């Protein structure tokens, strides 16, 4: 799933490379995907590379990316790596985890 649709708006901002690891299409996995899509279309619109990995299909990636919990969202760029676990339903924590929290006001407006 790529959210690479809007390359223009935030050219100056940092580029986000995210990878979401889920296990199968469980309700929890779906919830995580939906929650993430909302953030990618909102605050991160246009500056994110997102890849969703089903580690059930590609188990070797679980070890490679140190996945323990599912779902896990990994911020590969910008450095340092950040790791968000859970179904991403707590948006404030997700934004903080991704390093987007300081952007004033917008977080609350979106909710």
């Amino acid at each position: 799933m790529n959210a690479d649709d809007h390359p223009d708006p935030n050219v100056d901002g940092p580029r986000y490379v995210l990878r979401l690891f889920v296990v199968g299409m469980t309700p929890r996995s779906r919830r995580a995907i939906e929650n993430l899509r909302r953030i990618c279309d909102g605050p991160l619109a246009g500056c994110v590379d997102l890849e969703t990995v089903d580690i059930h299909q590609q188990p070797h990636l679980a070890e490679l990316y140190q996945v323990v919990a599912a779902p896990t969202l990994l911020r590969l760029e910008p450095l340092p790596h950040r790791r968000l676990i859970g179904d991403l339903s707590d948006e404030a924590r997700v934004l903080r985890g991704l390093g987007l929290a300081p952007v004033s006001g917008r977080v609350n407006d979106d909710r």
Partner: protein
Amino acid sequence: MTSEPSIPKSLAKAPTGISGFDDVTFGGLPVGRPSLICGSAGCGKTLFAATFLVNGAIQYGEPGVFMSFEERAEDLAANVASLGYDLDGLVADGKLAIDHVRVERSEIEETGEYDLEGLFIRLGYAVDTIGAKRVVLDTIETLFSGLTDASILRAELRRLFGWLKDRGLTTVITGERGDGALTRQGLEEYVSDCVILLDNRVEDQVTTRRLRVVKYRGSAHGTNEYPFLIDEDGISVLPVTSADLDYDVSNDVVATGIEGLDAMLGSGGFFRGSSVLISGVAGTGKTTVSSYIVDATCARGERVMSFVFEESGAQICRNASSVGLDLKHHVESGLLRFEAARPTLYGLETHLARMHRDIEQFRPSLVVIDPISALHGPATELQSTILRMVDMLKGRGITAVFTSLRTDGGFDERGDLGLSSLMDAWIKLLGVEANGERTRTLYVIKARGMSHSNQVREFQMSAAGVKLVEAYVGPAGVLTGTARVVQEAQEQAEFLRRGQESERRKRDVIRRRQAIELQIAELRASLEVAEEEEAILLSEDEIRETLLATERRAITQRRSAAE
């Protein structure tokens, strides 16, 4: 020995290959079930787990997965390399998989519901890749410090252990010891089949590693605390509680190499497999006597292992050369091995465990412990340690020579527990001080199963070797050393004097006899003279009588004529 006969099928066991541990548990860890190895930091949990996997992969053809929650794979490989394990090689051969699970709290943001399916998938993938039969989770409790939601973790761990059981994986889970519980997070509640407790206790500034099987569902197991060792040869557990006295006895006699001593023992030496105590205060020649026995044994082509606590092996070799013994070439030929260690280096149990392992490896026919009195510890522990040591040696038919500084046969300076009663033979070396000099004397106090001399011998050491001299026993008591020599000289002089005296008396008698004989001769001469005179007198008388008779006849004739 497995479970009770009423249970038809005994629990399958997966051998760990850890010497001693498989004996204590009668076969190893339960197959297809998780076992918990717990203990405080630095007690050897990780090494135990790694040994379980490595031995499984190499000796028993069971590949294993090592899931490390603490150490990185390369650190782990480096750490166990000191035990001689080549993890990288095993990984390359597909016999081992190492997965380092890193959970760093500072990097993690919890954003909602989650489970540990990622861990399951990683483990399942690793297991499937190499066809693993064994799994180690070291130390899974680390997850609790990385993730906040303990209730999720507990539920997931319970699920994990169930999953491991379903897949039939023999699993070792390590856990750090917590306050008042076996593990910090109470893992023992989940892993209820087999719990092993490792311990690293410090007593009198000496540490001893101990292992105890806390629980082993469905199986008999040794319940004691067993000492264990970790060194360059890996882990070894010492089951040291065999209290049987049913070892084979030998009638084979082994000579001591000291002629005089062999002569004192009725059979010409000690029985093979007996324990011999050589006691004596400092400088009475205990080590020298034991060196002789060592030399004699090596000369027969048998192996000797010497545990020395006060000197180095090289020093003993050098000292032995001063009495003409060449122990060095026995060391070089591989028949003699010294194991030198300060007695305070380890606890008693560790000493015993080390000896056990070394003896297992070297398989000597004679073991020397010099001196046993150097081992320190609480008296009861000391006694049980030495008892088990004697047991262990006897059970293997190894002749044992113990030296002791205690002359009364006790263990140490204080206790009054009898070491001597454990021994089959007891040689006592005593220094006798008299007339400003010390001499060494030797007694054979006891020698079970053989007659032996009850007499004291003077024990002489010189460059020519050791000599036992019969001490002087006279009316003035037992004399040794110079006193013996002086006494012998005195006796010699006395003997000479007595000889001269009797010569003189003999001459006297002869003289007197000659005088008497002379007198007899003289008397005989005068007797002869007297006899001659008598004869003359007799013949004169006869003549006179004849003349008288003739005259009388003539007168008669004349008178008748005249009538």
